[in-house]
């Protein structure tokens, strides 16, 4: 029973973290595919916003080879936004190698920090002064009203216009007229609620499964009151062969004790690897271009 409770507490605490990120722990959007440009691990931005941003970044890359990355985090702890952005930029290698046309937009919610960092190849077009202007004129007014989705989209749109040196296509311009509640892409805000429901359902299912592995139905009184009291390994599991164990249950209601023999999964099945773990998450993912930055761009707090 205690073990069961401990598992519950652990899983709840794991889910309820408001994580503080380091440059190493920010999830790289490219692992989800080459057309992913936005890191939104705390779900600060709506799904429709992320879709719009990805669309805009993809169009930007196709026309100018400028690799745009948007990262929206709730907290980076005490780290300076500039240092964080610099390390993240260099770590992921945003921008085409050799050309260095990468742009990173870092948004930190708790410290109200915004930093735009440019690669050396794009800083002639997207100058420090330009970045500062975009931030203060287009983005901060929206941020001050807590319209983070809109603010980021407006900023990215300006960057698109500056880099392509022209007007943005109609489908992107809708964000200028939309409010924060408006649709930037498709009408799928309900999707968020369904997602929440699914997660809660899965969580409840998980709890039920864990509980049922400890509490079994008593063969005598047919009530589900038999708790696990002893676990005895008859044959230990090895790398490839399963083992056997004897589980002793005692029914709380009628006092009846019975045993069950279960198989233990081999180590290979439970993912226990001897030394090196494969752990590769590169199947189907993409990568950034391998560019670097010299720390240019602009930053500020709203």
């Amino acid at each position: 029973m205690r073990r069961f409770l401990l598992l519950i507490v652990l899983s709840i605490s794991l889910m309820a973290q408001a994580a503080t990120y380091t440059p190493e722990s920010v999830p790289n959007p490219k692992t989800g595919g080459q057309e992913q440009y936005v890191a939104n691990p705390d779900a600060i931005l709506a799904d429709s916003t992320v879709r719009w941003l990805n669309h805009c970044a993809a169009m930007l890359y196709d026309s100018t080879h400028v690799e745009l990355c948007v990262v929206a985090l709730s907290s980076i702890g005490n780290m300076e936004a500039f240092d964080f952005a610099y390390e993240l930029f260099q770590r992921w290698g945003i921008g085409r190698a050799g050309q260095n046309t990468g742009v990173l937009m870092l948004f930190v919610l708790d410290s109200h920090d915004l930093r735009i960092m440019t690669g050396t190849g794009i800083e002639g077009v997207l100058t420090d002064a330009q970045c500062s202007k975009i931030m203060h004129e287009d983005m901060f007014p929206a941020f001050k009203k807590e319209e983070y989705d809109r603010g980021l989209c407006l900023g990215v749109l300006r960057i698109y216009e500056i880099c392509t040196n022209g007007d943005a296509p109609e489908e992107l311009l809708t964000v200028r007229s939309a409010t924060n509640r408006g649709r930037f892409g498709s009408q799928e805000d309900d999707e968020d609620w369904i997602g929440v429901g699914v997660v809660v359902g899965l969580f409840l299912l998980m709890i039920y499964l864990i509980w049922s592995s400890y509490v079994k139905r008593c063969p005598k009184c047919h009530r589900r009151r038999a708790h696990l009291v002893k676990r005895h390994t008859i044959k230990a599991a090895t790398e490839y062969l399963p083992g056997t164990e004897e589980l002793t249950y005692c029914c709380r209601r009628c006092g009846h004790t019975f045993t069950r023999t279960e198989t233990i999964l081999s180590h290979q099945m439970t993912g226990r690897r001897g030394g090196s773990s494969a752990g590769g998450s590169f199947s189907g993912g993409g990568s950034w271009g391998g560019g670097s930055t010299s720390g240019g761009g602009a930053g500020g707090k709203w």
Partner: protein
Amino acid sequence: MKNFLSILVLGLVALTMNSCMYNSLVSSEEAVEAAWSQVENQYQRRADLVPNLVATVKGYAAHEQETLQGVVDARAKATQITIDPANATPEQLAAFQAAQGELSQALGRLLAVAENYPDLKANENFRDLQAQLEGTENRIAVARQEFNETARAYNQKVRRFPSNIVAMIFGFEKKPYFEAEAGAQSAPTVAF
């Protein structure tokens, strides 16, 4: 015993006197020099912003002659000191850093004075220059950090055994570092 000793010496010679070690020292030194030129670039970029900045401020705050002149003088002094990275000594680098530090302080004073002139603060050109100045300070910081890293890697090679033997023979010297300054190198902040 004599045989063993001569074998040992031969082994040591073979270990050290190979082109691999020499080449890695050379490429390390080249990396340091490239990093140094980056540092110089960014400092020059800052120096190039100064005339424009002074002209803009003069248009609104003509009475602040002293501060303006201070910036112009500090810039002249800073651009005069140049360092050849191949022969740099710690004293030379410290002098260079000090001169650039004085320019930083003069710029800081100028920006502080500009706070008193709301017309100047609202000027588009001035805001652009402030953003560029802040951006340049950040780039300087990054360039210095990268220089220090390449210099450290190079110095490690020069001092470690057995590559220190090769270094000694071919005259590779240690490179100096940029020292951290006590607060004076913080970027002039822009508060809107």
